[in-house]
């Protein structure tokens, strides 16, 4: 039976229609074979247009639709939903991207952009003519989540997942849990130490029967996919290594960060005495009693009483010359907090802050205010003129051009210099390599979409939480960890999952197993099977992602991709080439 197609061309509120003449596109495609209606719309994704589309499909008995709008990455599910609600199998909807590929790419050439849009829509119509109804592949999903990394993000995720009745394998590389919580002294804004927080979390972990904690453990191999990841965990113990296999429906990665280690000589680090990093400074304060609680009222380092401290901000962050262009987000607040903490230990201490603009965002502003009111001195240096640190008589000299005093040079002779070091990605990147997790420009793991899918990765079933995604303070890490827990939970909570049916299939009549496809497959989805007709390739339906890598390498052209068959592609190319 001949298809009846409806075509919708979106203006995207000007994003498309400012460059593409959508009325001309409509005119050009409305008489294409099988097209019985073609409409333009201000926002195809808008609620009212979705309603109109549903009505159109029902009233005109449409057997296929084409939507020409933005990237299908944004709205594929939106229009699949429209089709389903109108009783049309969702694989009869075909998308044409005329925003990223036409209006935005060719904003300098409006007629050209319009011409390209017409071709793209015609090609989509050609594909829609051949589209077939498909049913999703349903697989079982193990009600268990593997959480990798037991810092604050991993611990909170594990506890929350267990409380949502999921089994949890909490895998930690180190012999003890807690990650960087073990090193934190006072955490803003609560005046609680990391150790106190950790004690609470340890109790909660211990009381959750669903959590299996595995320390001294590393994930060394992974097979399978969403619904059933099979992880090989190597556990080192006094009797040598043992290996254990874990099955989980989803994996939550919370491998954390490293503190930046300055290079030798960077602001006097390792070359000038008494130049230390912020984590080292916090450790130094860790053992000291507050003056009000019976402490000596003094801070001693390297046998010397410390009367003045210079803090240098943005060490390893916002680098003008280095690779770390990003802001590490937590360090301004952490350094200001540390400078308040040191006053509590040694009230007479003088604090000098050399910074590039203090970023105590939100309510954290209040501690900056407090620090100012206690008499701390803030000196803002120029981006391109970082402070110079050198050994001097009676202490360490820190010189900088001060933005506030008409760029006059200020010099402070301090007893101690604290380098406010930022966050860098964990140097152990094995988990990222194992799961092929993409990284951003800053080398932290990347989410799919910062706002729409902030804790998911492009690898189905793998979520990211905490600082492995980017710098965060404790509260922000926990928020992201609980969000990731919600997402991982939704992958496993129903016991089954629906997968895309757009996968590769083998024509056994022509296949003469040569192994080329299995070598090309990045997902280990192709295997050899013995049949009466000899050795043939066979594709695992739940691991195949439909990426198409196996297609072009097949010498006998025996593999096709559902919905992207040779016939589909040739028909589309025919139209594009016109």
């Amino acid at each position: 039976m001949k298809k009846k197609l409806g075509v919708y061309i979106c203006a995207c509120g000007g994003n498309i229609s400012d460059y593409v003449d959508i009325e001309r596109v409509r005119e050009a495609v409305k008489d294409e074979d099988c097209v019985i209606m073609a409409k333009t719309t201000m926002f195809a994704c808008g609620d009212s247009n979705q309603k109109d589309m549903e009505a159109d499909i029902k009233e005109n008995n449409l057997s296929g639709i084409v939507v020409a709008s933005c990237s299908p990455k944004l709205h594929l599910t939106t229009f699949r939903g429209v089709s389903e609600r109108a009783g049309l199998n969702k694989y009869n909807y075909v998308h044409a991207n005329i925003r990223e590929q036409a209006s935005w790419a060719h904003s300098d050439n409006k007629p050209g952009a319009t011409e390209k849009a017409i071709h793209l829509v015609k090609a989509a119509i050609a594909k829609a003519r051949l589209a077939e109804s498909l049913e999703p592949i349903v697989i079982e999903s193990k009600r268990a989540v593997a959480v990798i990394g037991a810092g604050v993000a991993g611990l909170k995720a594990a506890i929350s997942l267990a409380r949502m009745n999921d089994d949890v394998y909490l895998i930690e590389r180190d012999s003890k849990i807690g990650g960087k919580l073990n090193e934190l002294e006072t955490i803003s804004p609560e005046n609680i130490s990391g150790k106190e927080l950790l004690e609470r979390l340890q109790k909660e972990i211990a009381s959750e029967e669903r959590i299996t904690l595995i320390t001294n453990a590393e994930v060394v191999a992974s097979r399978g996919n969403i619904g059933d990841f099979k992880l090989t965990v190597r556990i080192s113990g006094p009797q040598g290594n043992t290996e254990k296999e874990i099955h989980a429906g989803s994996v939550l990665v919370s491998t954390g960060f490293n503190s930046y280690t300055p290079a030798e000589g960077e602001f006097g680090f390792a070359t000038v005495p008494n130049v230390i990093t912020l984590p080292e400074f916090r450790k130094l304060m860790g053992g000291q009693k507050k003056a009000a609680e019976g402490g000596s009222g003094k801070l001693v380092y390297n046998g010397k009483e410390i009367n003045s401290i210079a803090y240098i901000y943005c060490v390893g962050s916002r680098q003008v010359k280095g690779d770390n262009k990003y802001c590490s987000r937590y360090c301004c607040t952490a350094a200001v907090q540390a400078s308040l903490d040191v006053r509590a230990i040694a009230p007479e201490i003088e604090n000098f802050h050399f910074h590039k603009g203090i970023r105590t965002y939100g309510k954290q502003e209040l501690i900056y205010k407090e620090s100012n009111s206690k008499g701390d001195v803030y000196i803002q240096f120029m981006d391109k003129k970082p402070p110079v640190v050198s050994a001097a008589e009676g202490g360490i000299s820190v010189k900088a051009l001060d933005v506030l005093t008409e760029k006059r040079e200020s010099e402070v002779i301090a007893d101690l210099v604290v380098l406010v070091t930022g966050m860098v990605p964990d140097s152990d990147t094995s988990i990222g390599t194992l799961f092929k997790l993409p990284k951003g420009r800053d080398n932290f793991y990347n989410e799919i979409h910062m706002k729409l899918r902030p804790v998911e990765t492009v690898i189905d079933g793998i979520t990211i939480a905490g600082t492995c995604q980017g710098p965060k303070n404790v509260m922000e890490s926990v928020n992201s960890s609980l969000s990731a827990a919600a997402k991982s939970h939704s992958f496993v909570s129903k016991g089954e999952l629906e997968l895309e049916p757009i996968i590769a299939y083998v024509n056994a009549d022509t296949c003469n197993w040569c192994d080329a496809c299995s070598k090309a497959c990045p997902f280990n989805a192709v295997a050899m099977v013995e049949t009466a007709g000899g050795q043939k390739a066979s594709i695992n339906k739940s691991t195949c992602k439909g990426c198409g890598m196996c297609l072009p390498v097949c010498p006998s052209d025996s593999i096709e991709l559902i919905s992207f068959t040779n016939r589909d592609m040739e028909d589309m190319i025919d139209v594009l080439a016109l």
Partner: protein
Amino acid sequence: MQKEPITLTYDAIVIGGGIAGGEAALNLANNGYKVVLVESRLSVGGKMIMLSKVFPTLDCSACITTPKVSEISRHPNIKIFTESDITSIDKLGEQSFVVKMTQRPRYVVAEDCTACQLCEQACPVIVKDQFQYGLVGRKAVYIPFSIASPKVAAIDIDNCTLCGACEKVCPPGCIDFTMKPKEYIFNVKTAIVATGFRLYDPTNVPRYSYGTAKNVITSIQMERLLAPTRPFHTILRSSDGKVPDKIAYVLCAGSRDDSMGNPICSQICCMYSIKQAQLLLGALPMADITIYYIDIRAFGKGYDEFYEQAVSMGVRFVKGKIGKITEKENGNLTLRYEDVATGKLKEAEHDMVVLSVGVKPNKEAADLFKSHKLELDGLSFVKQSDPLLSPAKTSIDGVFVAGAATGPKDIPDSILSAGAASTEAISYLNQKSQ
């Protein structure tokens, strides 16, 4: 008048239909829980649906809000009430809350309205459009905005003259002046507060001349001028139609200043101003854009790079706090400021000034809870009872908080906090029932 309130039962109530409330509702609904979402305005989507583009990716805000809004409004496990006010929430015990709500009449039968806008054309009354932040007018019967959800007309009864013009032209005859408020009672097991924030009212700072000088606007008004569904389809001074070519941003307008009644940093203004500056350079390539700032707080993922991008595009950044804004006869503005780089008092003339207004709390949330006290912090934001380890917990067990109700937050942080609130709510529902 309705005799008995309508009583309904849900697993969870979400208070506020902005991006945080919507995200929390979706998380719960996708895990099988029945959710009622209550929004006080005519449309869900909160502030985000009104924005132009979002930092630091410059995604079109409507393009990423509408799929969420659409998913929320069609989800079989979510029931939405717009134009509705909660009057009380009482906790009877664990997993037992009673919520009373009143839905104000729209005077339009929502199910029958097709948003054809004939009523709008017929209505003789013009008032300021609150959804366009007063930049243009609207009718007394109106569709809130083009991507509103639900996209249904409503009558602003306070300004309506009851002339009946709309009733005569409405094709499905869905105007109904006899509508009365409807009372509801919900029995729910848990609640998520996602009441968002208010924008700082710049008339509190008379020296900035907002409301008196015609070409001093707020940043949310600039969002509307820049949005795809913008009222003028270009950037102009609404007072005289001039296309501005020297635009100033005044940061910390209502932030980081006790004398303005807000000691904290509003967390979003630096970034949205930098974003608007970049969009303005796209829309008005010849314009000069100057941002007057105290500190640039570009702290999130990709934010500092976005700031550096603005600098390289030619946006001028001047470190200095604006003391006073005065209007000249031609409508231009004189800005007095201390230029920190030189330590001198300076004056600059601009033909449009945008006040980057800050974030203030919506205190009303606390008043809804009657039997138990929903505590607020010293700044009147909802207090987090365990901010480090359970940021979504409040002073009431079973009541969680999402988004900017606890303090200023950008969109990614709001969405993550909504994820946290829904996880806590699911844990609460699971644990106590065992």
